[in-house]
Structure formats: C-alpha cells, structure tokens
C-alpha cells in the first residue's frame, strides 16, 4: 500500500566504481521533472578510484524531494541503497528507523565483509531486520541473469547494477521509467550494447518491485507547487559559470576566466572552457598566483577578469590581491571553500575562509566580500560580483563552498531579457585622464584601458598620489589613500540591498544568522520553529563586506542572536568586532553539513 509523505530522502551508496553518482543524478532529475522540489548532496571519496570494497572508497549520492520547499538534502534517509558492506557501514546511521534498506546480498561476501570491518554479515542480523525494512537481494546474480544474452563482459554487466537499484527505487516511488530511459539513451548513444544492457537491467529492477513477494510499501510523495516557469536542475558550480557568462553579456564587457584546477572549484573551469563558443576566454594557468596575476592584467585591459579557486589557492593569491586593491582593478575571485586548514579534507565542505577573505593581505587592503546561499544563487551572486567590481572598480571575493558547488536544486531559468543590465564605470574619454580621478559618489576611479588615445597611465603597487597617480611617499597622501580605499568599499553599502529577515519573524526572541550554504538548514529550522509558535527570524548575510547598512538594526530587533557556521565562529567574530554584539554561536567543523535536528536543538535551548 502506498504511504503519502511530504518529502523523502534517498541515498545511493556503493563503491566509487558502482555508478552511484549516475543513479543519483538520474533519480534527482526525474524527481524534479515529476514536479518535486529537490536538494542533492553528492559525497565522494578523495581517492580517484579507491580499491573496491574499502571503507574510504564509498561514494554516495543523497537526494531529497518533496512537496514543500526542499531546503536541505535531509538529516536522515528514508531509502538507503547499499551496494556492499562498506557502503552499509558508512551510511547505515543515516537510515531512519523503519526506513527501507536495499542491499546487494551478493556483495556481502567474506572479503567485502572483512574490508568493511564486519565480523559477521549484518544483513543476517535480526536487529537490523527489526529496525528497518531490509530488502536484501542478490542483485549481482539478478543482473547477470537479466543479461545472460548480452555480449558484454561480466565486468561490464556488473557495472549496470546501479540501473537495477535505480529501477527498483523508481518502482518504490511509482515513477515512470520513460524519462530515465531517455537519459540513458542519450548517455550511451554511441555504445549500443551498453545501452541495451542498461535499459534491460533498469527494467529488471523495476519489475522486480512489481513481482516481489516481500512487502515493500510504495511511497507516494505529493508534488511541489513550484512557481510557474521552465526549470532545470543546476549545481552551484554550474550556476557560477552561467552567471559569469551572463554578466559578460549584461555588461557588454569581454570575459576572461582563468583558473588553476582545484577541488571543488575545477568544474567551473571545465564549464567555462566548454563555453569557448560563447566568445569568452577560459584558460588554465600554471598556478593560482599566475591565475590572479593574469586576471589583473586582463582587468587592466578592460575585461571582466575572474578566477575561481579553493582555500589553498586563495592563500596563494594574497599578495596579488593586494596589488588589485592598490591598482583598483575589478578582478573577481570565486573561492569555493572546502575543509582546511592546509590541504585539509579536499572533498568535504567548510566555511572557514571568511576571515582570510576579509583580512588575508598585508597592509590595509579592503575589498568586497560576498557569499552565495544556495546552488542556484551562485548564478545571481556571480552576476552581482561582476556588477559591483565593474561599477566600483575594486576587487571582489565571492565565497561559495563545496556543498553549494556540488549540490543541485531545480532552477527556474530566467528570461535573459529581463535581467538588469548595467554600465561599467569605464572612462568615456572626456577631458584629461588621471588614473585616480574618482566618481564623487562611489569614489570609484575611472577605468581607462590601453588603446584609448590620450589616457595612457601607469598603475602599480607603490602608493600613488591621489588623482594624478604619481608615485608618492607623502605622509598625508598615504593616509588619504588608505582611507579612500576603505571608504570606497564602505560606500558599496549604498549599492546593495538592505538586509532582510529571510524567513520568520521580523523581530522577536531569536535571530538565527548565517551565511553561505547553511541557508537551507537555517531556513528549514526557522520555518519549523515559527510553525511551532516561536518568534524566530532567519537573517542570511550575503554581503559580508561591506555589511548591509541596516544589518545592526535588523539584528538588534531580536533578543538573542545565534550565528550558525561551519567554522569556529568567523562571522560571529566579525559581528562582535564590528557591532559589539554579544552573539551566540553554533559551530560545526566536521566536513559534513549541519543537520536540522542539531540546529533546532540549539535554537530551542536559547529559546527556553
């Protein structure tokens, strides 16, 4: 019998080579197409291809879908697919009591059990069977059986096991196989045998559900009432790349993207390189110092100049970012944060580069710092970064993180025509040009570019005289310039939206404050708390330097302030130092997202 639920979470877990990412993406996309809202979280190992069966080789893909606005990929899962003992070991704690566990019993052999550190076969454990609805199936055998006529090798056949579980999961949720089949057809268009096998196995899994004699409830999930429009799913990195291309069109400026590969930012480079046909230039530099340096050169030449990196790369860019501050050139650095310090845990999310973005340069070197809140938000924040850089003629750091970068959500595709254009603060060529002439209001210097006749000038890292740009060691001039650079960034506050309470009450007992990828979990918790009658508001800060003008006002409308971060309290420190506000902190630095449950508990304690 079907059960109806508001939202459901499914996790596919198996070896890196088991195709769990593919199954997950396929299922997510189909869920979105069915009209659900979704949130996904891929979780794969650092190793390229870890040996089969090992604990560190487990690759996972979690997707949550449902009727409500889906804000996180879920604390717990309703359906867990475990392709081998290691996958079970690593993920079973996520499975809700009463949840469905699908396991390939063929893979629970002695060797795999040993590799996962099991002393006995957990599938035969009575407690397990009591706690969960266990579907222990000989999937490998079933797949081989289904493909007995296929010309593929056994290895190749086994590689279709992901389609089997996908089929079964489709059946559980009463889905239509057609869309999945289309996607598979696209993917394997050039490999008819493989295509054939995948389709067969997908159906085999699905029909197993239909014919199974054990009781598995079909789960029904109501569809979301998403706003009207054309949708696609989009990851944070995809959104960033598209945002940059869009910014180039909206501003009319050429786009130079340069980057040195690093997890989890590399995919932005891959996308940008693909978009070569969109008249942008995307190149791979010899390192991050070269990346930011060449971006500075391109910005001097009149381009939107962007680089994307992650923590270690941001650290390497420190010196050159100082040059960008001094020369007042509009370069944009996208920092897709990952767990640090140093190499840290490169495939895990964290938000610990905020203070580095703020202060990580010698001397007084202020710049604009932004942070996007959801995967799709990267699209808009990338445009915003470019807009602010090219109108205020100052470097910008946009903070994303691994969770946003790889996570996906349905995105209502905007109509390009309706996106606001802007005019970059380019020198118009009227009158004599001096490099440090400024707009009176924004204090942005005029951006004249090589090739403009009569506007020749030299910029550089040495302190310059105001207006003329001549090298100057004059004491009062230096102080003036230090203050001008600071004030110019401060005045950006006039050009950004006021801080809103994103969810919940406009004032009251508790403000839960966050930035970056904690958006989903905070919003979700605040919604729950408000529903439960608490007077709580969610304040999500996307403009970190400068802060929105009214931020302090908004925060002080609440009796208590809880700052939620995946670090040791960096925004909290900024708020304390800036506003002398005695904030509470919720910090989690584990390389895994904050769960709704733990955040809610903390909030409730403060509300007592």
């Amino acid at each position: 019998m079907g059960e109806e639920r508001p939202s459901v979470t499914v996790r596919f877990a198996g070896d890196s080579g088991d195709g769990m990412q593919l199954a997950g993406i396929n299922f997510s996309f189909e869920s979105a197409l069915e009209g659900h809202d979704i949130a996904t979280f891929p979780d794969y190992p650092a190793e390229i291809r870890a040996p089969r069966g090992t604990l560190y080789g487990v690759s996972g893909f979690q997707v949550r879908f449902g009727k409500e606005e889906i804000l996180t990929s879920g604390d717990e899962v309703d359906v867990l697919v475990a392709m081998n003992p290691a996958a079970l070991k690593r993920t079973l704690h996520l499975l809700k009591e009463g949840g469905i566990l699908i396991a390939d019993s063929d893979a629970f052999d002695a060797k795999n059990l040993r590799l996962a550190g099991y002393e006995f076969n957990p599938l035969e454990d009575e407690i397990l069977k009591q706690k969960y609805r266990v579907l222990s199936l000989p999937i490998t055998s079933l797949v081989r059986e289904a493909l007995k006529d296929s010309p593929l090798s056994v290895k190749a056949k086994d590689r279709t096991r992901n389609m089997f579980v996908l089929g079964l999961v489709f059946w559980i949720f009463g889905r239509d196989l057609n869309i999945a089949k289309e996607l598979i057809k696209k993917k394997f268009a050039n490999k008819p045998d493989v295509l054939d096998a995948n389709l067969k196995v997908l159906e085999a899994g699905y029909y197993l559900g239909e014919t199974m004699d054990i009781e598995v409830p079909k789960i029904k999930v109501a569809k979301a009432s998403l706003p009207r429009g054309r949708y696609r799913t989009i990851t944070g990195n995809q959104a960033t790349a598209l945002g940059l291309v869009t910014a180039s069109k909206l501003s009319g400026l050429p786009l130079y993207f340069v980057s040195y590969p690093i997890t989890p930012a590399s995919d932005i480079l891959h996308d940008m390189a693909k978009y070569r046909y969109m008249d942008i230039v995307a190149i791979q530099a010899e390192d991050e110092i070269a990346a930011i340096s060449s971006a500075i050169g391109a910005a001097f030449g009149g381009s939107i100049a962007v680089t994307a990196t992650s923590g270690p790369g941001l650290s390497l860019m420190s010196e050159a970012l100082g040059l960008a501050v001094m020369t007042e050139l509009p370069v944009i650095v996208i920092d897709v944060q990952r767990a640090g310090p140093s190499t840290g845990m490169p495939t895990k999310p964290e938000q610990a580069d905020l203070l580095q973005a703020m202060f990580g340069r010698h001397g007084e070197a202020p710049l604009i710092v932004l942070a996007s809140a959801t995967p799709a938000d990267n699209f808009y924040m990338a445009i915003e970064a470019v807009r602010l850089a090219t109108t205020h003629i100052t470097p910008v750091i946009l903070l994303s993180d691994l969770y946003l970068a790889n996570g996906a959500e349905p995105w209502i595709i905007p109509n390009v025509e309706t996106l606001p254009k802007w005019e970059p603060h380019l020198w118009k060529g009227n009158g004599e040009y001096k490099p440090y002439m400024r707009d009176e209001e924004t204090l942005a210097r005029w951006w004249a570019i090589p090739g403009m006749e009569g506007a020749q000038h030299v910029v550089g890292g040495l302190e310059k005289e105001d207006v003329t740009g001549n090298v100057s060691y004059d004491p009062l001039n230096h102080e003036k310039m230090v203050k001008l650079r600071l004030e110019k960034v401060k005045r950006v506050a006039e050009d950004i939206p006021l801080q809103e309470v994103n969810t919940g009450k406009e004032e009251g007992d508790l403000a839960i404050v966050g930035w970056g990828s904690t958006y989903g979990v905070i919003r979700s918790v605040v919604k729950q708390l408000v529903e439960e009658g608490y007077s709580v508001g969610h304040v999500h800060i996307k403009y970190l330097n400068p802060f929105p003008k009214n931020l302090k006002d908004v925060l002080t409308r609440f009796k208590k302030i809880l700052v939620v971060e995946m670090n040791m309290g960096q925004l909290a420190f900024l708020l304390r130092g800036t506003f002398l506000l005695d904030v509470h902190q919720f910090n989690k630095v584990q390389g895994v997202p904050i769960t709704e449950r733990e955040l809610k508990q903390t909030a409730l304690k403060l509300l007592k």
Partner: protein
Amino acid sequence: MADTKIALKPADFQSSQEPRWCPGCGDYAILKQVQTVLAEKGYQPHEVVFFSGIGCSSRFPYYMNTYGMHTIHGRAPAIATGLKVMRPDLSVWVITGDGDALAIGGNHLIHALRRNVDMNILLFNNEIYGLTKGQYSPTSELYKVTKSSPWGTAESPFNPVLLALSAGATFVARTIDREVKHQRDILKQADDHKGVSFVEIYQNCNVFNDGAFADFTDKKKQPETTIFLKHGEPAIFGTNRDKCLVVENGKLKVAHIKPDGELPENVYVHDETSLEKALLVATLFGPADQVPRPFGIFYRVTKPTYEEQLRQQRERAKRKMGEVSLQDLLYGSETWQVK
C-alpha cells in the same frame, strides 16, 4: 603599424617623470633604445603597454608615456599574459630583472615562453639585486661576495639564454647596455617577431656590481671575449678576426683561422632556426678569459602564438556548436515546465 599616423620621436615616448635610477646606471641606455625603437617602428603611445615586476629596472614603465603597470615581484609575465590574451591588438612588453625574472618569477617566465605569448620580455641582467641594495641573484657567479653572501655564494648561476631556449621560447637573444646599436637592432627584431621574444640585456649596476660585464664592454678586451652571432655566418671573432668557433665531437672549441683566411672545415656556422645549434652555442658560458660569450640572436622560429591558438580554439568550438544564444545556454540540455 599604420603609416597614416603621425611619426613620433623617441622623446614622445618619454613620460614626464624623471628617471630615478642612479646616475650612470645601465638602465638609462636601455630606456633610450626602447623609446627609439618604438618611435622608429611607428607605434603610438596608447597602443603600447609595459609591464614590470619589482626591482630597479622595473621602474621602467613610469618613464614611458605609454600604458603601463609596475606590478609585484616576479609576476609581470603572468600579468602581461592576461592582457595580451584579451588584447592581441596591443604591443606588450615585459621589463624584468635577474632577480625578478629568475628568482621569484622563474615559473611564470618559463610558462610564458612555453606558451609563446606574443610579447617582448627584456631581462635586465645586472647579476645582482639592485633595489634591495646588493644581494646576490640567480645569475651571480659562484663564490661572489655580496651583502647576503659575505663568505661567497654557494650556488652556480643560471644561464638565462639556455633556460629560455629549453622552456620553448621562439626568439632568444642576448645584448648589452653599452652596445647601443646592437641593442637597438636586437630590440627591433624582437618586436618584429610574432611570438614571445626573450632578450637578455647585460646591464651594469654601477653601485652594487660595477664592472660585472667589463670583460665584454671594455673596448680592448671585447674582440677577444665576445662573439656576435649572425644567421648563416661562421662565428668569427678576435682582435684580428683570426679566431673562430669549431665543432669537435659535439662541443664548441676556439680555433685559429689560418693567415690565408681559410676557415676550418668544422667551423661553427650559426643558424637561428636550429634549436640544436642555439643550445650548443648557448653553452658558451664560462669565464670571459677562457670562453668567448655569444651575443645576438640565438634562435628565432615562427610558431602559432598562444593568442592565435586560443582564437583557433574558439573557432573550433564555434564550428562545432554553431551560434548559441545566452538563453539557450542557460537552458542547457534538460529542462521541464511547471505550469
């Protein structure tokens, strides 16, 4: 450059800033020659961009009436690459020192050379750190006593020409501050070259390393210590032009030319287009009283520039993809409609 424009004089490339090098510094001569070459070649100041790193030599852009950026230590080749890639229409020059280019900036240098970005890299080699007042550099000779090596250095210098050749440069030359005509000629050819040009210029720092190149500039010694390479010609030198280079078992040796002027059979004939020959002649790097030092163009070949390769890359992409509107790009491959 277009000849419809007004012809300019060297002075038209001089900025209003007075050079702040020490009186007698070799940098002055180079500044002069660069300005002369730009004028002779008919550039307009706004078509030209100078990038430099940090060092005495790197103050160069301030003295030019062109666009310029005095950047940070060692990064000029990378910064220039960003500009040139986006603005192939501009003439791009990089001014750098031996410390700037070969100590902190070694990596960007070899990558710019490998990529064949069309710009002129002038390395002012004074075998010392001038701006920081006299420490040894990666081109200072072994055992040199400097502020940071009061007991003599412990490391052998780079051979910048050899390094540039091996990194993949398509134009490699060496000249010297005092030989203004040679210098001007080399600079002009460097600028003519489509692709990266690497020019090592021996530059006297009369404050911290005076006379480092005296062996090659002293009018008496010069004929015995220097060989001016010419494409297609045998390498002849000597006060009486009675010496030449010969190849023996793959190595270069000095041989005497017979009084009748007949050259040895195995005389070294320079060939700019041969990497093998360029590498070989670049190995002449010993003490001036033992090994003559070659000057001139070691190597010059034409290969597609980086910018050109990027342009072709875009063509390939466009051919494959056709016109794609931004809206289509945003749509991507899989969309659905919520009604």
